[in-house]
C-alpha cells in the first residue's frame, strides 16, 4: 500500500508489455495478494457483502469460489452474523442457508433498516401489521438512505392496497417523493397517475400524462395522443401551449407529406436547389416558421404552410417573425425580400424603412449570412445611433459608410486613422485623400 508514485507509474507502464515470465507471474500474484489485503482491510467495502454473495457463488458453479480467501461457505454464515455479536442465534444445521436467513432474522425495525443499508438481503415479510410497516418506513426515512427507503416502499407497495399506501404516504413527504421517483423509473405510469389523482395534484397529473408523448414515435399516433392532453388541468398558460403543440404537429404532418411529395417529384426549383436536410416533424415552432419562410415564402395566407398563416395561428410576435424571415431570406440571398421586409408605406404613399428589431441586429444577421458589402452598407446606413453605425461599418468593412460618417462628423482625425485600414491605392483611399485635402470641409479637429 505504500507504493510511491514512481513505482506506480512503472507498474502501469510495465503492464503494457505482455511478456510473460515466471517472475512476472509471481509479481502478479503478489500484486493480487496486495490487492486482496487492501480490499480486506476495508471491511465495509468488500467483505461486507457476505452471506448472500457466497450463496450466489455456490449456486452458479456448485462449489464455493474464492475459498482461498475465505473459509468455506459454512463458516461464512457465522461470519455474516458476527457483525451483531450482541444477538446470537443458534444456527439450525441442515437447513438451507436461504431459508435460514429468513427464519433467523428477528431483527427490530431499526436493525432491519441498518442491515438493508449495508446491502444485505433481509426479509421484510414478518412486518405484517400496518403499524410495523409504518415503523419500518419511519426508521428508513430517519436514516436518510434513499435506497433503503425505496426498498421498504417496494415491500409496502406489494403488501398494502394502494389506497392505504397512498393515504399513509400523503403525510410522509420524503417517502412519497421516493415512491414517485421509483414509479417514474420503473415506468409504472398507471400507478403514478393514480397516485397523483389521489393526492389531488392535478397539474402534475396532467404533465405526467403529457410526458408520455415523448415515447410515441409515429407522428399520427403522437398527434392523437396530444389531442387527449387538451383539456387536462394544466395551468392556464400551459394549456395554451398544449393546444399549440397539437396544432403545430397537425400542421407539420400536412406540410411534411406535401413537401416530401414535391421534393421527390423533382419539379419544384427550391427543393431541387436546396434539398431538405431533415423532416419538419416535431421541430419547434420557430424552426417550422424558418422552414416555411425558406420553402413557402410567397404562398398565400390561406395555405397551411405559408409563413403568414403560421404567424397568425400561433400569434408569433412581430420581432420573432421578422428575425426568422430575415434569416431565412438572407440565407437564400433573396435581397429583395429582405428589402420588402423592412419597407413600410405611410398613408401618403411614401416608403419608409423600419425594423422592429433595430437595424444593428439586421446588419449582424445579414453579415452572418455572408451578405455582400453593398447590401450591408445599405442597412448600416439605416442604423440611427452614429457610434453604433460607425462601429458596425468599421467591423464589417463598409468603407463608404465610415468615410461618409467621418465627413459628416467633421472628424478629420478618425478619417486619418481609418486611411491606414483601407488598401493602398484603392478607390477608398482616393476618396479619403480627396476629402482630407478638400477645403470645403471645416474639420472639427
Amino acid at each position, binding site marked *: 500500500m505504500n507504493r510511491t508514485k514512481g513505482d506506480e507509474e512503472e507498474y502501469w507502464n510495465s503492464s503494457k508489455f505482455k511478456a510473460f515470465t515466471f517472475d512476472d507471474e509471481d509479481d502478479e500474484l503478489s500484486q493480487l495478494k496486495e490487492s486482496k489485503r487492501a480490499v480486506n482491510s476495508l471491511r465495509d467495502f468488500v467483505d461486507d457483502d457476505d452471506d448472500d454473495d457466497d450463496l450466489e457463488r455456490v449456486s452458479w458453479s456448485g462449489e464455493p469460489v474464492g475459498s482461498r480467501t475465505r473459509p468455506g461457505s459454512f463458516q461464512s454464515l457465522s461470519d455474516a452474523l458476527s457483525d451483531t455479536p450482541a444477538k446470537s442465534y443458534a444456527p439450525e444445521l441442515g437447513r438451507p442457508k436461504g431459508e435460514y436467513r429468513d427464519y433467523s432474522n428477528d431483527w427490530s425495525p431499526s436493525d432491519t433498516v441498518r442491515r438493508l443499508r449495508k446491502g444485505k438481503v433481509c426479509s421484510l415479510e414478518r412486518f405484517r401489521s400496518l403499524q410495523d410497516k409504518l415503523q419500518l418506513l419511519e426508521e428508513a426515512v430517519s436514516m436518510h*438512505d434513499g435506497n*433503503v427507503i*425505496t426498498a421498504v416502499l417496494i415491500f409496502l407497495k406489494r403488501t398494502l392496497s394502494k389506497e392505504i399506501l397512498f393515504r399513509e404516504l400523503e403525510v410522509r413527504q420524503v417517502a412519497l417523493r421516493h415512491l414517485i421517483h421509483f414509479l417514474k423509473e420503473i*415506468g409504472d405510469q398507471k400507478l403514478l397517475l393514480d397516485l397523483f389523482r389521489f393526492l389531488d395534484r392535478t397539474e402534475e397529473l396532467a404533465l405526467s400524462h403529457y410526458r408520455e408523448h*415523448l415515447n410515441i414515435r409515429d407522428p399520427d399516433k403522437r398527434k392523437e395522443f396530444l389531442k387527449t392532453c387538451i383539456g387536462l388541468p394544466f395551468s392556464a398558460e400551459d394549456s395554451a401551449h398544449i393546444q399549440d403543440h397539437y396544432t403545430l404537429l397537425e400542421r407539420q404532418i400536412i406540410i411534411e407529406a406535401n413537401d416530401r411529395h414535391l421534393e421527390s417529384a423533382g419539379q419544384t426549383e427550391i427543393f431541387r436547389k436546396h434539398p431538405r436536410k431533415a423532416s419538419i416533424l416535431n421541430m419547434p415552432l420557430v424552426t417550422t416558421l424558418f422552414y416555411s419562410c425558406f420553402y413557402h415564402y410567397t404562398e398565400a395566407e390561406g395555405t397551411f404552410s405559408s409563413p403568414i398563416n403560421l404567424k397568425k395561428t400561433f400569434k408569433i410576435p412581430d420581432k420573432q417573425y421578422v428575425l426568422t424571415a430575415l434569416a431565412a431570406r438572407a440565407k437564400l440571398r433573396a435581397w429583395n425580400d429582405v428589402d420588402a421586409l423592412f419597407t413600410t408605406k405611410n398613408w401618403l404613399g411614401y416608403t419608409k424603412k423600419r425594423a422592429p*428589431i433595430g437595424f444593428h441586429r439586421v446588419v449582424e444577421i445579414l453579415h452572418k449570412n455572408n451578405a455582400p458589402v453593398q447590401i450591408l452598407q445599405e442597412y448600416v446606413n439605416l442604423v440611427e445611433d452614429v457610434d453604433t453605425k460607425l462601429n458596425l461599418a468599421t467591423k464589417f468593412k463598409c468603407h463608404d459608410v465610415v468615410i461618409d460618417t467621418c465627413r459628416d462628423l467633421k472628424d478629420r482625425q478618425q478619417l486619418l486613422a481609418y486611411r491606414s485600414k483601407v488598401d493602398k491605392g484603392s478607390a477608398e483611399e482616393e476618396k479619403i485623400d480627396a476629402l482630407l485635402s478638400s477645403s470645403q470641409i471645416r474639420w472639427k479637429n
Partner: protein
Amino acid sequence: MAFPHRPDAPELPDFSMLKRLARDQLIYLLEQLPGKKDLFIEADLMSPLDRIANVSILKQHEVDKLYKVENKPALTSVELCFHLPLSLVNADKLAGRTRKYKVIFSPQKFYACEMVLEEEGIYGDVSCDEWAFSLLPLDVDLLSMELPEFFRDYFLEGDQRWINTVAQALHLLSTLYGPFPNCYGIGRCAKMAYELWRNLEEEEDGETKGRRPEIGHIFLLDRDVDFVTALCSQVVYEGLVDDTFRIKCGSVDFGPEVTSSDKSLKVLLNAEDKVFNEIRNEHFSNVFGFLSQKARNLQAQYDRRRGMDIKQMKNFVSQELKGLKQEHRLLSLHIGACESIMKKKTKQDFQELIKTEHALLEGFNIRESTSYIEEHIDRQVSPIESLRLMCLLSITENGDARCSLDTHYGPEHLLTFSNLRRAGLLTEQAPGDTLTAVESKVSKLVTDKAAGKITDAFSSLAKRSNFRAISKKLNLIPRVDGEYDLKVPRDMAYVFSGAYVPLSCRIIEQVLERRSWQGLDEVVRLLNCSDFAFTDMTKEDKASSESLRLILVVFLGGCTFSEISALRFLGREKGYRFIFLTTAVTNSARLMEAMSEVKA
C-alpha cells in the same frame, strides 16, 4: 503571475491511494469470475474506468472482449441495469448456451434494480455485485464521485439514494486520512449525509480512533444553497475550457481547430501539465500575456543551442530537449485552445452577455437585462443558454421578473420549465395563501410527529431566493474604485472579473474565519437553511497545526471550476489549502441539461 503556493502551505495528502484501492477492488471482482469473460461497460463509466485500469490490466484478469453499452436516453438508470442482461440471457437461452452472468453495480447496487431483475425472471441467472468505486482523484486536490446524476436525483426528484454513497465515501476518507476534528455544513442534504456518516463511524467504532487527523476541517455544502454561482459564465481559464470544450473526468478532447492538425487530441488537464497548472486559475484576460511570455522564454532556451560546442549540445539534447519539447507541445495546445475560445466567444457576443450577467448580479438595469434575454431567446441562440439566463434572472430578482419568456420556447419545454420550478432554479412568486391553504389542509391529516417532516417538505416549495439581501449581507458585489486589476486579484471576485464573489465560497470563508455559524444567523435564515446549518467540533489536541490548515470542501450536487479557483485563491491568501470533493464537476450547461426533459 500564476499563483505559487505559499512556502508555509500545508502538504496535501496522497490521494493516489484511492485509485489503487479502486483498481484492486476491480481486480478482486474480476477474479471472482475465474476464466475468460466478456465485460460490458456502461458508457458513463468508461472515462472513470479509464483512469483506474487500462485494457491490459483487464486482459491480465482474463477479460476477453470489452463492450461499451451506449446509453439510450429513453432508458432510466434502473431500466438500463436489466436491459442488457435480459437480452443476453434470453439470447443465450435460445441458443442453448450456458454462461454465467454478473452485474457489477458501481458505486452501489440498488434494491430497485434487483427488484427489476427479479420481475424479469432473471434474478437467479444473474448475480449482482458492487464495485464501491466512489472517489476518483482527478487532481492532487480534487476528488470526484463522478455522479452527475446526483443533482437531478436529489434536487429535482428528492431521491436520497446517493446519500449513503456520500457517507461511505466520507467514511473511507476518514479511515485512510484520520478523523476530521472540525465539521461544518449547510443544506438539508449536507446534514443528512453528515448524520448518516456519523452513524457509520459509530457502528464501526474504533477504526479511526487513535489516528492523527491529516485534514483538520470538513465543510459540506448543498448545491441549492448557491445556484447563482453555478449559473454564471466562467472566465477563469479552467472554467472557460470546461464551458467551451467540456472537461470530462479530468480530460478534454481538443478538436482539429485547437490542435491545428487534422486530428483530435485527448488531453489530461491537471497539475502535472506544467503550462496548464500555471494558467488554470487565471482570469482569461491574463492568459494570453502569460502564454506569449512563456513562448518567448521557450524560444530563448531553444536558441541557446546556437554557439554550443559538441559536448554542450550533447548535454542539451539528453537533458533539456525532451522537457522543452514537452513544454512546446503543451504551450501550442493551450494557445490553440485560447484562440478557439476567443473565436467562439467573439461570435456569440460574449462581452454583452457578461455585461448582462453582471447587471443581474448587481441588480441594476433590470429592464435592459430582461430585454437582452428576450432577444437572446428570439434569436434562438441556444436553448440551454437562454434557460440559464432566465434562471439567473429569476433567482437574482426573486421571481419578480415574470417569465413570460417561455412562450417562445416550443411546447416540449413545458416539462423542463416545470422541472426548473420544482428544483428552485426558476422561482415564481407563489401567492402566499395558496401555500398556506395546502399546508393547513395537510397538517390536519398529520400527527404531531410527522408535522416536522411536512414542514421541511414544504420549505422547498415555499423557498424563495433572497439573493439580493444575501448579497448585501455578505458583500458579494465588491465596491471598486476604478478598474479591478485582474492581474493582481484582491479577492475571490476575480473569478468573475471582479464583479461578484461566489456565494458558496464566501460562506465557506466566513464560517472558517469564525469556526462556526455565529453571527451568520440572518444569512442562514435568508438561505432557508435555519435547520440545516451545523457545526461539530472535537478536541483538537491531536491535530497538528499543519492539518488544521487543510480543509476538505464537499459539494453535494456539483461544484464549478470557478469555485475551485476562488477557494484556491482564498487558500493562498490565508495560508490554507483546500481539497475538493464533489459529486461531479459541473457548470451552468450541465445544470440546465440535467433539468431538461427533451434530450438534445
